[in-house]
């Protein structure tokens, strides 16, 4: 392996994960390694054509992040703050430690795909009835995407650069890549980066995906609905959650004797410039994103020991992605599809899968893909199934492809 192409390497020193697989990194990882889908009936979507989803286990959000935050914020902000707290604690950092937490140098970058609309059905019904004075004043601050980053900053006293990336289903991966650039440029010393979303929590955000025809219609079998790379796949299942990591310079991390999970070695970002929602038929943007991330990392494709695929389980995404991965990584590294277990968390997905990729690298273990009963004969990949694949890994890649033709790929390596 060659050294990173430029600048000081950026280390991942903290991880936080709130997903349908569990609250917290360890609970989530255990469920992911079981390789069973978490999809089930969803009361919010009852009576709709897609009455199921992957939900974060019923936690008392008020208890997790405090009622004083939850009364004025939607779930994606609760998830974001909870995952950020976990990541910062995991990094061994403490915002109350004024000697070591240099607040002005701590940034936050969160990927969020769309405006949350949990309360919109109720509140907008008031508008349609002409009852505008009873409209809640929290509609804007509880729902707009940038609030995930803003609320984390206020909660953890992070006063540096603070922004939200919105690249649809690649948002969380884009956020982590941009966070690395902020450190490389010298703008920040530490960045809390990830993604957060909950589109399943409102018919206003869930049903538009159904109408587009991208959701699985297996209402009779929710647990079997999310089946990436399977011959019988018919679309994705909506999920929710947040994945967050703490990034800082490798030298600084070593100097404070932090535990280093991985080095964020490469980032590639491209556009298909082709179609609003369909992938490029040859996966042009996806391929270039992966190659750019490899070049940025100073690695060869053959160095990559595992790929966490985007793998939404739509007919077209998986077919195109399968061809791209086969071509870019001809040595058959084990591939997994996290969305088979936790569904598609949209803007959070890239960050959740980045966290999973780091865990796979650090633990030498690739969780299996659920529901892969009959691999699509046109998809020629080594997909991990049934049980976790344990092997020593030196470098891993994670890729995310969003509507709008927006693509992001991340490469992590051992420190």
């Amino acid at each position, binding site marked *: 392996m060659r050294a990173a192409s430029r600048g000081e390497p950026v280390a991942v020193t903290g991880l936080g994960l709130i997903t349908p697989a569990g609250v917290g990194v360890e609970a989530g990882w255990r469920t992911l390694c079981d390789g069973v889908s978490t999809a089930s009936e969803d009361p919010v979507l009852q009576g709709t054509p897609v009455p199921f989803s992957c939900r974060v286990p019923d936690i008392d959000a008020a208890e997790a992040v405090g009622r004083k935050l939850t009364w004025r914020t939607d779930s994606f902000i609760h998830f974001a703050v909870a995952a950020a707290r976990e990541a910062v604690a995991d990094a061994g950092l403490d915002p109350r430690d004024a000697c070591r937490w240099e607040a002005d140098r701590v940034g936050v970058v969160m990927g969020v795909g769309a405006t949350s609309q949990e309360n919109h059905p109720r509140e907008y019904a008031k508008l*349609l009835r002409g009852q*505008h004075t009873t409209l809640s004043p929290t509609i804007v601050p509880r729902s707009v995407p940038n609030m995930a980053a803003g609320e984390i900053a206020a909660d953890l006293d992070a006063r540096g650069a603070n922004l939200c990336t919105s690249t649809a289903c690649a948002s969380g991966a884009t956020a982590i890549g941009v966070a690395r650039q902020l450190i490389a440029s010298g703008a920040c010393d530490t960045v809390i980066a990830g993604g957060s979303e909950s589109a399943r929590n409102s018919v206003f955000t869930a049903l538009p995906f159904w109408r587009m025809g991208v959701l699985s219609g297996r209402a009779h079998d929710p647990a079997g609905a999310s089946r990436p790379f399977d011959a019988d796949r018919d679309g994705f299942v909506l999920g929710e959650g947040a994945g967050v990591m703490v990034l800082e310079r490798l030298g600084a991390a070593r100097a404070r004797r932090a535990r280093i999970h991985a080095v964020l070695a490469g980032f590639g970002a491209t556009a298909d410039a082709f179609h609003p929602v369909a992938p490029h038929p040859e996966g042009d943007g996806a391929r270039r994103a992966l190659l750019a991330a490899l070049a940025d990392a100073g690695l060869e494709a053959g160095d990559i020991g595992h790929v966490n695929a985007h793998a939404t389980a739509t007919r077209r995404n998986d077919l195109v992605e399968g061809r791209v991965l086969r071509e870019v990584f001809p040595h058959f590294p084990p591939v997994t599809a996290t969305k088979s277990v936790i569904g598609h968390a949209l803007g959070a997905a890239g960050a959740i899968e980045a966290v999973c990729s780091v865990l796979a690298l650090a633990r030498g273990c690739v969780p299996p893909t659920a529901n892969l009963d009959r691999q699509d004969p046109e998809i020629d990949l080594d997909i991990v199934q049934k049980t976790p694949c344990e092997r020593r890994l030196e470098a891993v890649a994670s890729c995310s492809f969003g509507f709008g033709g927006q693509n992001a790929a991340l490469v992590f390596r051992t420190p």
Partner: protein
Amino acid sequence: MDIEAKVTGYLQQHFGVDAAALRPDATLEELDLDSLALLELLVIVEEETGVPVTDELAGMNTGATLGEAVAQIEKAVAGAAPAGEPTAAGEPGAAPAGEGGAAPGAASGVPAAVPAPGPAVAAGDESGAAAAADVRR
């Protein structure tokens, strides 16, 4: 209607204020209520009572004590229609703009029946803006 009990109930259940902090001489600010929270409180009261307190009490600020706030809300509610009960509750479309009537905390989801649009909703409601003026951006 026991306004004091209602308000202190909302403060605990909706806003997460500690019961022990709910002294009449505590200012709303001391209870961690900012102007957004104060307006949300008035919206809840308006939904519950049908009395347009968000307009009538638009001048209230977070420097008011809990006791003063409760007294002002009681006065506004008592001075409204003799019944002081929600008018036209459950009659979507029947309530004139600004007179409440929605069931508070109605479950989110598909509105059971979306009525024809009521009177124009966007124009001229400055009370909310005034009350929330010190909310950043």
